[in-house]
Protein backbone atom coordinates (compact mmCIF):
# COMPACT_ATOMS: atom_id res chain seq x y z
CA UNK A 1 0.00 0.00 0.00
CA UNK A 2 1.37 3.35 -0.95
CA UNK A 3 -0.84 5.33 1.42
CA UNK A 4 0.24 7.30 4.50
CA UNK A 5 -2.19 7.70 7.40
CA UNK A 6 -2.17 10.53 9.94
CA UNK A 7 -4.34 11.35 12.95
CA UNK A 8 -4.23 14.76 14.70
CA UNK A 9 -6.20 14.56 17.94
CA UNK A 10 -6.88 16.40 21.17
CA UNK A 11 -9.86 18.34 22.50
CA UNK A 12 -12.36 20.62 20.86
CA UNK A 13 -11.03 24.19 20.52
CA UNK A 14 -7.41 23.18 19.88
CA UNK A 15 -7.81 23.74 16.14
CA UNK A 16 -7.07 20.15 15.13
CA UNK A 17 -9.65 20.00 12.34
CA UNK A 18 -8.32 23.27 10.93
CA UNK A 19 -4.80 21.81 11.16
CA UNK A 20 -5.96 18.72 9.26
CA UNK A 21 -7.54 20.93 6.64
CA UNK A 22 -4.34 22.95 6.20
CA UNK A 23 -2.14 19.85 5.99
CA UNK A 24 -4.50 18.27 3.43
CA UNK A 25 -4.43 21.43 1.34
CA UNK A 26 -0.61 21.44 1.38
CA UNK A 27 -0.43 17.81 0.27
CA UNK A 28 -2.95 18.27 -2.57
CA UNK A 29 -0.92 21.21 -3.86
CA UNK A 30 2.08 18.89 -4.07
CA UNK A 31 0.11 16.68 -6.46
CA UNK A 32 -0.97 13.80 -4.23
CA UNK A 33 -4.49 12.61 -3.37
CA UNK A 34 -5.93 13.12 0.09
CA UNK A 35 -9.01 12.09 2.02
CA UNK A 36 -9.45 14.07 5.22
CA UNK A 37 -12.11 13.11 7.74
CA UNK A 38 -12.87 14.24 11.25
CA UNK A 39 -14.76 13.46 14.39
CA UNK A 40 -15.88 15.84 17.08
CA UNK A 41 -18.50 16.03 19.80
CA UNK A 42 -21.62 18.23 19.94
CA UNK A 43 -19.97 20.72 22.30
CA UNK A 44 -18.83 24.27 21.58
CA UNK A 45 -15.57 23.56 23.43
CA UNK A 46 -13.97 20.38 24.78
CA UNK A 47 -14.67 16.74 24.05
CA UNK A 48 -12.44 14.62 21.84
CA UNK A 49 -11.67 16.18 18.48
CA UNK A 50 -9.70 14.54 15.72
CA UNK A 51 -8.73 15.05 12.10
CA UNK A 52 -7.54 12.10 10.01
CA UNK A 53 -5.70 12.11 6.69
CA UNK A 54 -5.15 9.32 4.18
CA UNK A 55 -2.53 10.44 1.66
CA UNK A 56 -1.88 8.50 -1.54
CA UNK A 57 -0.14 8.84 -4.88
CA UNK A 58 -3.42 7.80 -6.55
CA UNK A 59 -7.13 8.06 -5.77
CA UNK A 60 -7.86 6.99 -2.18
CA UNK A 61 -10.11 3.90 -2.12
CA UNK A 62 -11.17 3.73 1.54
CA UNK A 63 -10.89 7.24 3.00
CA UNK A 64 -10.71 6.43 6.73
CA UNK A 65 -7.59 5.51 8.72
CA UNK A 66 -6.95 1.97 9.92
CA UNK A 67 -3.15 1.71 10.49
CA UNK A 68 -1.65 5.03 11.50
CA UNK A 69 1.76 6.05 10.21
CA UNK A 70 1.73 9.20 12.36
CA UNK A 71 -0.24 10.13 15.47
CA UNK A 72 -0.28 13.57 17.11
CA UNK A 73 -1.94 13.91 20.52
CA UNK A 74 -2.46 17.37 22.02
CA UNK A 75 -4.62 16.23 24.95
CA UNK A 76 -4.62 13.06 27.01
CA UNK A 77 -8.41 12.77 26.65
CA UNK A 78 -7.88 11.67 23.03
CA UNK A 79 -5.41 8.85 23.72
CA UNK A 80 -8.05 6.20 24.47
CA UNK A 81 -9.44 6.06 20.94
CA UNK A 82 -6.11 5.50 19.22
CA UNK A 83 -4.79 2.14 20.44
CA UNK A 84 -6.36 -0.09 17.82
CA UNK A 85 -4.98 2.12 15.02
CA UNK A 86 -1.35 1.88 16.09
CA UNK A 87 1.21 -0.48 14.61
CA UNK A 88 4.85 -1.11 15.57
CA UNK A 89 5.80 1.27 12.74
CA UNK A 90 3.61 4.18 13.89
CA UNK A 91 5.38 7.44 14.78
CA UNK A 92 3.84 9.24 17.76
CA UNK A 93 4.17 12.89 18.78
CA UNK A 94 2.74 13.87 22.18
CA UNK A 95 2.42 17.22 23.85
CA UNK A 96 4.68 17.02 26.90
CA UNK A 97 2.34 19.14 29.07
CA UNK A 98 -1.13 17.83 28.19
CA UNK A 99 -0.32 14.14 27.76
CA UNK A 100 1.03 12.72 31.03
CA UNK A 101 -0.02 9.12 30.60
CA UNK A 102 2.61 6.50 29.86
CA UNK A 103 0.27 4.07 28.07
CA UNK A 104 1.83 4.84 24.69
CA UNK A 105 5.41 4.60 25.94
CA UNK A 106 5.87 1.14 24.44
CA UNK A 107 5.55 2.82 21.04
CA UNK A 108 8.51 5.14 21.85
CA UNK A 109 6.68 8.44 21.38
CA UNK A 110 8.40 11.80 20.93
CA UNK A 111 7.33 14.36 23.54
CA UNK A 112 7.61 18.04 22.63
CA UNK A 113 6.42 21.22 24.44
CA UNK A 114 3.92 22.17 21.72
CA UNK A 115 1.33 23.88 23.96
CA UNK A 116 4.00 25.55 26.09
CA UNK A 117 5.70 26.91 22.95
CA UNK A 118 2.43 28.37 21.71
CA UNK A 119 1.89 30.02 25.10
CA UNK A 120 5.37 31.54 24.94
CA UNK A 121 4.61 32.84 21.43
CA UNK A 122 1.60 34.64 22.86
CA UNK A 123 -1.40 32.48 21.93
CA UNK A 124 -2.25 29.04 23.25
CA UNK A 125 -4.38 28.40 20.15
CA UNK A 126 -1.30 28.31 17.93
CA UNK A 127 -0.29 24.94 19.43
CA UNK A 128 -1.84 23.26 16.39
CA UNK A 129 0.57 25.12 14.09
CA UNK A 130 3.58 24.38 16.31
CA UNK A 131 2.55 20.73 16.00
CA UNK A 132 2.23 20.92 12.20
CA UNK A 133 5.68 22.49 11.98
CA UNK A 134 7.12 19.65 14.07
CA UNK A 135 5.24 17.05 11.99
CA UNK A 136 6.69 18.41 8.75
CA UNK A 137 10.21 18.34 10.21
CA UNK A 138 9.78 14.79 11.49
CA UNK A 139 8.22 13.28 8.33
CA UNK A 140 8.23 13.56 4.55
CA UNK A 141 4.51 14.36 4.37
CA UNK A 142 5.07 17.71 2.65
CA UNK A 143 7.51 20.58 2.29
CA UNK A 144 7.48 23.34 4.89
CA UNK A 145 6.88 25.87 2.08
CA UNK A 146 3.72 24.02 1.04
CA UNK A 147 2.50 23.95 4.65
CA UNK A 148 3.07 27.68 5.10
CA UNK A 149 1.34 28.49 1.81
CA UNK A 150 -1.64 26.33 2.78
CA UNK A 151 -1.79 27.99 6.22
CA UNK A 152 -1.91 31.42 4.58
CA UNK A 153 -4.73 30.29 2.27
CA UNK A 154 -6.84 28.63 4.93
CA UNK A 155 -6.30 30.20 8.36
CA UNK A 156 -8.07 33.35 9.51
CA UNK A 157 -6.25 36.60 8.65
CA UNK A 158 -5.75 37.67 12.27
CA UNK A 159 -3.86 34.45 13.03
CA UNK A 160 -1.55 34.32 10.04
CA UNK A 161 1.41 36.08 11.61
CA UNK A 162 1.46 34.03 14.80
CA UNK A 163 0.74 30.84 12.83
CA UNK A 164 3.73 31.53 10.59
CA UNK A 165 5.95 31.95 13.63
CA UNK A 166 4.45 28.85 15.27
CA UNK A 167 5.22 26.70 12.20
CA UNK A 168 8.78 28.02 12.15
CA UNK A 169 9.40 27.28 15.84
CA UNK A 170 7.61 23.93 15.54
CA UNK A 171 9.87 22.96 12.66
CA UNK A 172 12.86 23.75 14.83
CA UNK A 173 11.54 21.59 17.69
CA UNK A 174 10.89 18.71 15.30
CA UNK A 175 14.30 18.96 13.66
CA UNK A 176 16.06 18.99 17.05
CA UNK A 177 14.20 15.92 18.26
CA UNK A 178 15.13 14.12 15.06
CA UNK A 179 18.86 14.43 15.85
CA UNK A 180 20.40 11.12 16.92
CA UNK A 181 20.88 11.04 20.69
Amino acid at each position, binding site marked *: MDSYEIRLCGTGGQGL*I*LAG*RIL*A*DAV*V*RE*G*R*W*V*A*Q*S*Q*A*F*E*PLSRGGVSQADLVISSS*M*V*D*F*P*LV*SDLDFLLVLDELAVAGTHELLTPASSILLDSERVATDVLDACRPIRLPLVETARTLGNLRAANMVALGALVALTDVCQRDSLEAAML*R*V*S*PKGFQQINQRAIEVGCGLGAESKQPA
Partner: protein
Amino acid sequence: MPNATSASTQNGRRLVQGNAACAHAAVAAGCRFFAGYPITPSSEIAERLSGELPKAGGVFVQMEDEIASMGAVLGASLGGVKAMTATSGPGFSLKQEHIGYAGMAEIPCVVVNVMRGGPSTGLPTRPSQADVMQARWGTHGDHPIIVLTPASVQEIYEQTVRAFNLAEACRVPVVVLYDEVVGHLLETVTLPAPGTVALTARKAPPPNEAAFVPFADTPDGVPPMARFGDGNRIHTTGLVHGEDGFPTQAPEVIDRVMRRVLNKLDHHVELIESYETHAVDDAELVVVAYGITARAARRAVRLARDRGIKAGLFRPVTLWPFPERPLRDLAAHAKAILVPEMNAGQLCLEVERLCAAYGSVERLNRIDGEPIAPAAILQRLEQMG
Protein backbone atom coordinates in the same frame (compact mmCIF):
# COMPACT_ATOMS: atom_id res chain seq x y z
CA MET B 1 -15.24 24.70 8.66
CA PRO B 2 -13.50 27.69 7.13
CA ASN B 3 -13.14 27.65 3.36
CA ALA B 4 -14.14 24.04 2.74
CA THR B 5 -13.08 24.18 -0.90
CA SER B 6 -9.54 24.88 -2.04
CA ALA B 7 -8.61 26.67 -5.23
CA SER B 8 -7.85 24.40 -8.18
CA THR B 9 -4.32 23.03 -8.56
CA GLN B 10 -2.44 22.92 -11.86
CA ASN B 11 -3.80 19.46 -12.69
CA GLY B 12 -7.39 20.62 -12.10
CA ARG B 13 -7.73 18.66 -8.87
CA ARG B 14 -9.17 20.33 -5.80
CA LEU B 15 -9.68 19.47 -2.17
CA VAL B 16 -13.40 19.76 -1.53
CA GLN B 17 -15.66 18.86 1.38
CA GLY B 18 -18.65 16.64 0.59
CA ASN B 19 -21.23 19.19 1.70
CA ALA B 20 -19.42 21.95 -0.21
CA ALA B 21 -19.47 19.76 -3.33
CA CYS B 22 -23.23 19.38 -2.88
CA ALA B 23 -23.70 23.16 -2.72
CA HIS B 24 -21.51 23.80 -5.77
CA ALA B 25 -23.31 21.09 -7.73
CA ALA B 26 -26.67 22.63 -6.90
CA VAL B 27 -25.61 25.97 -8.36
CA ALA B 28 -24.12 24.24 -11.43
CA ALA B 29 -27.38 22.30 -11.86
CA GLY B 30 -29.33 25.56 -12.04
CA CYS B 31 -30.69 25.66 -8.49
CA ARG B 32 -31.58 29.26 -7.68
CA PHE B 33 -33.58 28.86 -4.47
CA PHE B 34 -32.67 27.32 -1.13
CA ALA B 35 -34.80 27.41 1.98
CA GLY B 36 -33.68 25.52 5.04
CA TYR B 37 -32.89 25.39 8.70
CA PRO B 38 -29.31 24.51 9.67
CA ILE B 39 -28.70 21.12 11.27
CA THR B 40 -25.55 19.09 11.83
CA PRO B 41 -24.15 17.38 9.79
CA SER B 42 -25.68 19.19 6.81
CA SER B 43 -25.16 22.84 7.82
CA GLU B 44 -22.22 23.49 5.47
CA ILE B 45 -24.58 23.11 2.49
CA ALA B 46 -26.74 25.99 3.73
CA GLU B 47 -23.70 27.99 4.84
CA ARG B 48 -22.07 27.74 1.42
CA LEU B 49 -25.27 28.40 -0.55
CA SER B 50 -25.97 31.50 1.54
CA GLY B 51 -22.89 32.95 -0.17
CA GLU B 52 -23.06 31.29 -3.59
CA LEU B 53 -26.76 31.62 -4.48
CA PRO B 54 -26.98 35.43 -4.29
CA LYS B 55 -23.86 35.63 -6.47
CA ALA B 56 -25.63 33.45 -9.08
CA GLY B 57 -28.77 35.61 -8.99
CA GLY B 58 -30.59 33.18 -6.70
CA VAL B 59 -32.26 33.42 -3.31
CA PHE B 60 -31.23 31.90 0.03
CA VAL B 61 -33.68 31.92 2.91
CA GLN B 62 -33.07 30.62 6.41
CA MET B 63 -36.62 29.79 7.45
CA GLU B 64 -38.11 29.48 10.93
CA ASP B 65 -38.12 25.68 10.76
CA GLU B 66 -37.92 22.66 8.47
CA ILE B 67 -41.66 22.47 7.75
CA ALA B 68 -41.73 26.02 6.46
CA SER B 69 -38.48 25.44 4.53
CA MET B 70 -39.99 22.60 2.56
CA GLY B 71 -43.12 24.67 1.87
CA ALA B 72 -40.98 27.52 0.55
CA VAL B 73 -39.08 25.10 -1.72
CA LEU B 74 -42.37 23.89 -3.22
CA GLY B 75 -43.57 27.44 -3.76
CA ALA B 76 -40.34 28.38 -5.52
CA SER B 77 -40.52 25.32 -7.75
CA LEU B 78 -44.14 26.09 -8.70
CA GLY B 79 -42.85 29.52 -9.72
CA GLY B 80 -40.49 27.82 -12.16
CA VAL B 81 -37.26 27.95 -10.14
CA LYS B 82 -35.12 24.91 -9.39
CA ALA B 83 -35.24 24.65 -5.61
CA MET B 84 -33.71 22.59 -2.82
CA THR B 85 -33.33 22.15 0.89
CA ALA B 86 -30.81 20.27 3.03
CA THR B 87 -31.21 18.69 6.42
CA SER B 88 -30.49 15.70 8.64
CA GLY B 89 -32.66 13.04 10.30
CA PRO B 90 -34.77 15.13 12.72
CA GLY B 91 -35.32 17.83 10.08
CA PHE B 92 -36.04 15.22 7.42
CA SER B 93 -38.89 13.92 9.60
CA LEU B 94 -40.40 17.42 9.71
CA LYS B 95 -40.14 17.86 5.93
CA GLN B 96 -42.06 14.67 5.21
CA GLU B 97 -45.48 16.34 5.21
CA HIS B 98 -44.50 18.60 2.31
CA ILE B 99 -42.48 15.90 0.56
CA GLY B 100 -45.80 14.08 0.30
CA TYR B 101 -47.37 17.23 -1.09
CA ALA B 102 -44.61 17.34 -3.74
CA GLY B 103 -45.41 13.73 -4.65
CA MET B 104 -49.15 14.36 -4.93
CA ALA B 105 -48.94 17.73 -6.71
CA GLU B 106 -45.95 16.53 -8.80
CA ILE B 107 -43.63 19.39 -7.85
CA PRO B 108 -39.93 18.88 -8.74
CA CYS B 109 -37.61 19.49 -5.78
CA VAL B 110 -34.37 18.23 -4.26
CA VAL B 111 -33.99 17.31 -0.58
CA VAL B 112 -30.54 16.49 0.78
CA ASN B 113 -30.42 14.37 3.92
CA VAL B 114 -26.99 13.96 5.53
CA MET B 115 -27.56 11.04 7.88
CA ARG B 116 -26.56 11.17 11.55
CA GLY B 117 -27.33 8.73 14.35
CA GLY B 118 -30.91 8.63 15.55
CA PRO B 119 -33.74 8.43 16.42
CA SER B 120 -34.67 11.87 17.78
CA THR B 121 -31.68 14.11 18.57
CA GLY B 122 -29.62 10.93 18.54
CA LEU B 123 -25.94 11.41 17.69
CA PRO B 124 -25.74 14.80 15.97
CA THR B 125 -22.09 14.60 14.92
CA ARG B 126 -21.79 10.85 14.28
CA PRO B 127 -22.64 8.98 11.08
CA SER B 128 -25.41 6.51 10.36
CA GLN B 129 -27.28 5.07 7.41
CA ALA B 130 -30.52 4.76 9.31
CA ASP B 131 -32.80 6.89 7.09
CA VAL B 132 -32.91 4.42 4.20
CA MET B 133 -36.52 3.51 4.87
CA GLN B 134 -37.56 7.02 5.92
CA ALA B 135 -36.26 8.29 2.57
CA ARG B 136 -38.56 5.84 0.78
CA TRP B 137 -41.56 5.68 3.10
CA GLY B 138 -41.25 8.74 5.35
CA THR B 139 -44.34 10.50 4.14
CA HIS B 140 -47.79 8.97 4.32
CA GLY B 141 -49.64 7.30 1.50
CA ASP B 142 -48.40 5.64 -1.68
CA HIS B 143 -46.10 8.07 -3.45
CA PRO B 144 -43.33 8.17 -6.05
CA ILE B 145 -39.87 9.28 -4.94
CA ILE B 146 -36.28 8.90 -6.15
CA VAL B 147 -33.39 8.48 -3.70
CA LEU B 148 -29.74 8.74 -4.76
CA THR B 149 -26.90 7.69 -2.46
CA PRO B 150 -23.37 8.91 -3.27
CA ALA B 151 -20.26 7.31 -1.73
CA SER B 152 -17.58 9.96 -2.32
CA VAL B 153 -17.17 13.72 -2.57
CA GLN B 154 -16.86 13.45 -6.36
CA GLU B 155 -20.08 11.46 -6.47
CA ILE B 156 -21.93 13.90 -4.19
CA TYR B 157 -21.31 16.51 -6.88
CA GLU B 158 -22.42 14.22 -9.71
CA GLN B 159 -25.50 12.87 -7.97
CA THR B 160 -26.66 16.30 -6.78
CA VAL B 161 -26.62 17.51 -10.40
CA ARG B 162 -28.44 14.34 -11.41
CA ALA B 163 -31.02 14.86 -8.66
CA PHE B 164 -32.10 18.17 -10.18
CA ASN B 165 -32.25 16.65 -13.66
CA LEU B 166 -34.35 13.69 -12.49
CA ALA B 167 -36.68 15.94 -10.46
CA GLU B 168 -37.36 18.05 -13.55
CA ALA B 169 -37.67 15.09 -15.93
CA CYS B 170 -40.07 13.12 -13.72
CA ARG B 171 -41.80 15.84 -11.64
CA VAL B 172 -40.95 14.13 -8.36
CA PRO B 173 -39.11 14.94 -5.15
CA VAL B 174 -35.56 13.56 -5.31
CA VAL B 175 -33.63 12.83 -2.12
CA VAL B 176 -29.83 12.91 -2.08
CA LEU B 177 -29.04 10.65 0.86
CA TYR B 178 -25.55 10.31 2.30
CA ASP B 179 -23.90 9.63 5.63
CA GLU B 180 -22.03 12.12 7.81
CA VAL B 181 -18.68 10.56 6.87
CA VAL B 182 -18.87 11.50 3.17
CA GLY B 183 -20.67 14.76 4.01
CA HIS B 184 -17.78 15.99 6.15
CA LEU B 185 -15.04 14.23 4.19
CA LEU B 186 -12.59 16.38 2.27
CA GLU B 187 -11.33 14.62 -0.84
CA THR B 188 -9.30 15.36 -3.93
CA VAL B 189 -11.79 15.76 -6.76
CA THR B 190 -11.97 17.02 -10.34
CA LEU B 191 -15.05 19.14 -10.86
CA PRO B 192 -16.44 20.04 -14.30
CA ALA B 193 -15.84 23.54 -15.62
CA PRO B 194 -18.69 25.98 -14.98
CA GLY B 195 -21.32 25.81 -17.72
CA THR B 196 -20.32 22.33 -18.94
CA VAL B 197 -22.83 20.38 -16.83
CA ALA B 198 -25.67 18.79 -18.85
CA LEU B 199 -29.04 20.04 -17.57
CA THR B 200 -32.59 18.78 -18.06
CA ALA B 201 -35.20 21.48 -18.71
CA ARG B 202 -38.69 21.18 -17.28
CA LYS B 203 -41.29 20.15 -19.85
CA ALA B 204 -43.59 23.18 -20.17
CA PRO B 205 -46.84 23.78 -22.07
CA PRO B 206 -47.11 26.70 -24.50
CA PRO B 207 -48.07 29.83 -22.49
CA ASN B 208 -51.69 31.03 -22.51
CA GLU B 209 -52.98 27.75 -23.91
CA ALA B 210 -56.73 27.80 -23.29
CA ALA B 211 -57.12 24.04 -23.69
CA PHE B 212 -54.28 23.15 -21.27
CA VAL B 213 -55.16 20.18 -19.05
CA PRO B 214 -52.51 20.32 -16.30
CA PHE B 215 -52.51 16.67 -15.21
CA ALA B 216 -53.36 14.91 -18.47
CA ASP B 217 -51.53 11.63 -19.14
CA THR B 218 -48.64 11.67 -21.60
CA PRO B 219 -46.61 8.90 -23.28
CA ASP B 220 -43.95 9.12 -20.54
CA GLY B 221 -46.44 9.59 -17.72
CA VAL B 222 -45.18 13.09 -16.90
CA PRO B 223 -47.49 16.01 -17.75
CA PRO B 224 -45.93 19.32 -18.81
CA MET B 225 -45.76 21.74 -15.88
CA ALA B 226 -47.09 25.26 -16.26
CA ARG B 227 -45.32 28.02 -14.37
CA PHE B 228 -47.44 30.30 -12.21
CA GLY B 229 -47.81 33.56 -14.10
CA ASP B 230 -47.37 32.21 -17.63
CA GLY B 231 -51.10 32.46 -18.35
CA ASN B 232 -52.13 28.82 -18.13
CA ARG B 233 -55.04 28.05 -15.86
CA ILE B 234 -53.78 25.73 -13.13
CA HIS B 235 -54.91 24.63 -9.70
CA THR B 236 -52.49 23.05 -7.25
CA THR B 237 -53.67 20.92 -4.34
CA GLY B 238 -52.54 18.10 -2.11
CA LEU B 239 -55.99 16.58 -2.46
CA VAL B 240 -56.31 13.79 -4.99
CA HIS B 241 -57.26 15.61 -8.16
CA GLY B 242 -58.46 14.84 -11.64
CA GLU B 243 -56.63 15.71 -14.84
CA ASP B 244 -58.01 19.25 -14.48
CA GLY B 245 -56.21 19.71 -11.16
CA PHE B 246 -59.38 20.01 -9.05
CA PRO B 247 -60.23 17.63 -6.20
CA THR B 248 -62.22 14.56 -7.02
CA GLN B 249 -63.78 11.65 -5.18
CA ALA B 250 -64.81 9.77 -8.30
CA PRO B 251 -63.27 6.29 -7.87
CA GLU B 252 -62.50 5.75 -11.56
CA VAL B 253 -60.74 9.14 -11.81
CA ILE B 254 -58.82 8.57 -8.55
CA ASP B 255 -57.69 5.16 -9.73
CA ARG B 256 -56.61 6.43 -13.15
CA VAL B 257 -54.73 9.49 -11.89
CA MET B 258 -53.06 7.75 -8.94
CA ARG B 259 -51.88 4.85 -11.11
CA ARG B 260 -50.28 7.32 -13.49
CA VAL B 261 -48.59 9.16 -10.61
CA LEU B 262 -47.36 5.94 -9.00
CA ASN B 263 -46.23 4.29 -12.24
CA LYS B 264 -44.65 7.24 -14.04
CA LEU B 265 -41.13 6.37 -12.89
CA ASP B 266 -41.47 3.02 -14.72
CA HIS B 267 -41.27 4.98 -18.00
CA HIS B 268 -37.86 6.33 -16.97
CA VAL B 269 -36.05 3.29 -15.56
CA GLU B 270 -33.03 3.74 -17.84
CA LEU B 271 -32.68 7.33 -16.68
CA ILE B 272 -33.19 6.60 -13.00
CA GLU B 273 -31.53 3.24 -12.37
CA SER B 274 -27.84 3.38 -11.49
CA TYR B 275 -25.44 1.07 -9.71
CA GLU B 276 -21.81 0.01 -9.73
CA THR B 277 -20.33 -3.47 -9.61
CA HIS B 278 -16.83 -4.59 -8.75
CA ALA B 279 -15.36 -8.07 -9.27
CA VAL B 280 -18.78 -9.69 -9.66
CA ASP B 281 -18.24 -11.81 -12.80
CA ASP B 282 -17.40 -15.01 -10.91
CA ALA B 283 -18.46 -13.81 -7.44
CA GLU B 284 -19.78 -16.44 -5.06
CA LEU B 285 -20.17 -13.92 -2.24
CA VAL B 286 -21.75 -10.59 -3.18
CA VAL B 287 -21.56 -7.63 -0.80
CA VAL B 288 -24.42 -5.13 -1.24
CA ALA B 289 -23.36 -1.80 0.22
CA TYR B 290 -23.83 1.94 -0.26
CA GLY B 291 -22.28 5.20 0.96
CA ILE B 292 -19.10 5.05 3.03
CA THR B 293 -19.82 1.39 3.80
CA ALA B 294 -19.50 0.57 0.09
CA ARG B 295 -15.98 1.96 0.11
CA ALA B 296 -15.09 -0.25 3.07
CA ALA B 297 -16.69 -3.15 1.20
CA ARG B 298 -14.69 -2.45 -1.95
CA ARG B 299 -11.44 -2.71 -0.02
CA ALA B 300 -12.69 -5.80 1.80
CA VAL B 301 -13.54 -7.44 -1.54
CA ARG B 302 -10.05 -6.70 -2.85
CA LEU B 303 -8.44 -8.18 0.29
CA ALA B 304 -10.77 -11.19 0.11
CA ARG B 305 -9.75 -11.81 -3.51
CA ASP B 306 -6.09 -11.71 -2.37
CA ARG B 307 -6.99 -14.55 -0.01
CA GLY B 308 -8.67 -16.59 -2.75
CA ILE B 309 -12.25 -15.78 -1.76
CA LYS B 310 -14.46 -15.09 -4.77
CA ALA B 311 -16.14 -11.93 -3.48
CA GLY B 312 -17.73 -9.06 -5.39
CA LEU B 313 -19.50 -5.78 -4.69
CA PHE B 314 -22.88 -4.50 -5.82
CA ARG B 315 -23.31 -0.81 -4.98
CA PRO B 316 -26.70 0.78 -5.65
CA VAL B 317 -26.26 4.47 -6.51
CA THR B 318 -29.99 4.90 -7.00
CA LEU B 319 -31.34 3.46 -3.77
CA TRP B 320 -35.04 3.93 -4.60
CA PRO B 321 -36.48 2.68 -6.86
CA PHE B 322 -34.01 -0.10 -6.06
CA PRO B 323 -32.12 -1.58 -9.06
CA GLU B 324 -33.94 -4.91 -8.74
CA ARG B 325 -33.07 -6.76 -11.94
CA PRO B 326 -29.27 -6.24 -11.84
CA LEU B 327 -29.05 -7.51 -8.25
CA ARG B 328 -31.31 -10.48 -8.95
CA ASP B 329 -29.10 -11.42 -11.91
CA LEU B 330 -26.05 -11.44 -9.64
CA ALA B 331 -27.81 -13.26 -6.82
CA ALA B 332 -28.85 -16.05 -9.18
CA HIS B 333 -25.19 -17.00 -9.59
CA ALA B 334 -23.97 -16.33 -6.03
CA LYS B 335 -23.86 -18.58 -2.99
CA ALA B 336 -24.62 -15.86 -0.46
CA ILE B 337 -25.08 -12.12 -0.05
CA LEU B 338 -23.80 -9.86 2.74
CA VAL B 339 -25.43 -6.49 3.51
CA PRO B 340 -23.27 -4.31 5.80
CA GLU B 341 -25.06 -1.14 6.98
CA MET B 342 -24.69 1.54 9.66
CA ASN B 343 -28.16 0.78 10.99
CA ALA B 344 -29.99 -2.10 12.66
CA GLY B 345 -30.95 -3.59 9.26
CA GLN B 346 -32.85 -1.61 6.62
CA LEU B 347 -31.68 -2.13 3.03
CA CYS B 348 -31.17 -5.80 3.89
CA LEU B 349 -34.98 -6.09 3.99
CA GLU B 350 -35.14 -5.14 0.31
CA VAL B 351 -32.23 -7.42 -0.55
CA GLU B 352 -33.89 -10.29 1.30
CA ARG B 353 -37.12 -9.64 -0.64
CA LEU B 354 -35.24 -9.78 -3.93
CA CYS B 355 -32.67 -12.49 -3.30
CA ALA B 356 -33.80 -14.86 -0.56
CA ALA B 357 -34.95 -17.40 -3.17
CA TYR B 358 -31.38 -17.74 -4.50
CA GLY B 359 -29.36 -18.21 -1.29
CA SER B 360 -28.70 -16.82 2.15
CA VAL B 361 -28.72 -13.07 2.81
CA GLU B 362 -26.58 -12.14 5.81
CA ARG B 363 -26.47 -8.87 7.74
CA LEU B 364 -23.60 -6.91 9.26
CA ASN B 365 -24.85 -3.96 11.29
CA ARG B 366 -23.10 -1.29 13.29
CA ILE B 367 -25.16 1.15 15.39
CA ASP B 368 -22.55 2.69 17.72
CA GLY B 369 -21.89 5.88 15.73
CA GLU B 370 -18.76 4.47 14.11
CA PRO B 371 -18.32 3.50 10.45
CA ILE B 372 -17.89 -0.14 9.43
CA ALA B 373 -14.22 -0.95 8.79
CA PRO B 374 -12.97 -3.02 5.83
CA ALA B 375 -11.55 -5.55 8.31
CA ALA B 376 -15.02 -6.28 9.75
CA ILE B 377 -16.45 -7.02 6.30
CA LEU B 378 -13.39 -9.09 5.36
CA GLN B 379 -13.75 -11.15 8.53
CA ARG B 380 -17.37 -11.97 7.67
CA LEU B 381 -16.47 -12.85 4.09
CA GLU B 382 -13.82 -15.24 5.42
CA GLN B 383 -16.41 -16.88 7.69
CA MET B 384 -18.93 -17.13 4.85
CA GLY B 385 -16.36 -18.38 2.32
